[in-house]
């Protein structure tokens, strides 16, 4: 260790800092470490700059969101005294003010929530510019490509400045575009399943590629991937969703190709355990598509063996996916994945029960069966999560002791 190197202060959550301080004080009182060492350890951590939700931050972001949406609304509804060109110029000036202003605030190291709120306004503002330009020049109707271009514009802002909120605007609008563009040309249930699956593959690949480089972005891509995977399996299990033929439009094929490329690049550049994420998403895409293609008829009064097999296979596939996401959430310390998996499973099982089994398992018995499924799944979830956490704990201890002996 280089003793002359200046100590860097690392941001930690306030609760963790309080725990660390009490532990260090305990170690010092027991003579494990000296008072000087205890002081040096505690000064290396600070809760001042740690990102957490505060009332001020929430209000700033909410305010930014409301102002941004309000501006778009104003342009759309109330600026009828201005000509289309004047409206476009007015909105452009507002957007440019927010863009330049937010970067100016960032350069002066103003409070991060304030910079974030200004950047959020800039990211919403470019959407207003885009839609105002379309209105001024009379684009014939709503076109999904406008959403796609808004997404690209916000992502450009987010990535070039490493700013999270513009990135988030880009992801939300991008997800909306991911579905509206292909379905605009060829709407079908199976296309929805494939788009959800391909979205999961793309997002999982991007999450892996972002790991260690842009961790906040990686977390968001991972959450998007998990949500897409859960939705792919959910929609695939709806009876007769694949009844209509798929129209292989340019955009649907492009979505599948882009997802495949992202997964391939992720596997090639980040081999090892990380590759399991995009590979797992590909499995979800394939399984969901196959379940979607498996049609058993739409009659709710006549549930035959094929319906039972279809529903059972769907439930098993969904439970496996949910368990995999819980494991991923535990490994990545991503609590949102665990909650999404649990919520998704509850909604999915309930939907399947009422959609498929309600005609034959009615009333109170349906609730008993459903509750039993939840209890069993909950038990398995809890057991799997604890064993995984214990295995990770042992693994960390082993690697730490190995590193220690190497020294």
């Amino acid at each position, binding site marked *: 260790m280089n003793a002359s190197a200046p100590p860097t202060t690392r941001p930690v959550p306030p609760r963790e800092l309080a725990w660390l301080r009490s532990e260090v004080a305990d170690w010092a009182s027991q003579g494990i470490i000296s008072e000087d060492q205890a002081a040096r350890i505690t000064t290396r951590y600070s809760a001042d700059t740690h990102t957490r939700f505060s009332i001020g931050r929430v209000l700033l972001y909410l305010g930014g969101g409301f102002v941004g949406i309000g501006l778009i609304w104003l342009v759309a509804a109330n600026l009828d005294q201005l000509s289309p060109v004047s409206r476009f110029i007015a909105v452009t000036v507002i957007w440019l003010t927010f863009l330049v202003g937010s970067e100016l605030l960032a350069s002066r190291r103003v409070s991060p929530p304030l910079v974030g709120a200004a950047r959020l306004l800039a990211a919403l503002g470019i959407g207003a510019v885009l839609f105002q330009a379309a209105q001024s020049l009379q684009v014939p109707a709503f076109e999904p490509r406008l959403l796609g*271009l808004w997404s690209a*514009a916000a992502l450009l802002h987010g990535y070039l400045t490493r700013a999270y909120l513009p990135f988030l605007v880009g992801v939300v609008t991008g997800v909306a575009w991911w579905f509206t563009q292909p379905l605009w040309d060829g709407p079908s249930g199976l296309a929805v399943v494939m788009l959800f699956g391909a979205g999961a593959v793309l997002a999982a690949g991007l999450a892996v590629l972002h790991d260690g480089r842009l961790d906040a972005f990686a977390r968001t891509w991972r959450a998007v991937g998990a949500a897409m995977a859960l939705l792919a399996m959910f929609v695939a299990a709806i009876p007769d969703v694949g009844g209509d033929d798929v129209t292989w439009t340019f955009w649907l094929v492009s979505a599948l190709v882009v997802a495949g490329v992202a997964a391939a690049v992720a596997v090639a550049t980040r081999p090892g355990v990380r590759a399991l994420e995009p590979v797992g998403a590909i499995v979800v895409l394939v399984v969901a598509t196959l379940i979607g293609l498996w049609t058993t008829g739409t009659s709710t009064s006549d549930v035959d063996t094929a319906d039972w097999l279809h529903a059972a296979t769907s439930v098993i596939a969904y439970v496996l996916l949910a368990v995999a996401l819980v494991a991923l959430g535990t490994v990545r310390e991503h609590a949102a994945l665990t909650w999404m998996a649990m919520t998704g499973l509850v909604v999915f099982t309930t939907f399947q029960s009422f959609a498929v089994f309600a005609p034959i398992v009615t009333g109170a018995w349906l609730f008993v069966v459903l509750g039993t499924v939840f209890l069993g799944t909950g038990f398995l979830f809890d057991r799997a999560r604890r064993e995984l956490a214990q295995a990770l704990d042992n693994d960390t201890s082993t690697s730490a002791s190995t590193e220690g002996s190497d020294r």
Partner: protein
Amino acid sequence: MNRIAVTAVIAVGQLALVGVGVAPQLSARVTGDTYLMTVAPIDPIDPFRGAYVALDYPDLRHDGSEPIDAAGLGALDDGEEGAVFITLVQEGDVWAAGAWTRDRPDSGPYLACDDRSWQIRCGIESYFLPQDQAAATEDLLRDGAVAEVRIDGRGNAAVVDVRAP
């Protein structure tokens, strides 16, 4: 790259994306040829789009119904939806619809339209005006008027003026 350069790249890049979004309409205005078409009024004000005159084109309507009863360009009703192309033929001083097809014609002039909404739309269904001029143009439309429409080689169209024939 310093912050000023990054901000400039973002601004230019985002404006370029806006340009891509409205490229067909810009192309019609900049490179298109002018065609006159007979127009009729529909309703004066859409509360979500500001003051403008909504235009109806009786000579472009697919099913030939009266525009007063059912405004707009109609629908193909062929069980499909998506791109619609209207070829144009000259009738005196104005241009009218020749044929409606799903495939892009080999040669022009034609309008590139879309019927994913409840009727065919070609981007020429409204013309923005200040509130006072909108009212005057409404009166002009009742007496019979023509729209000056610019159409480029790909069928993209834009209304540039509404005037007496």
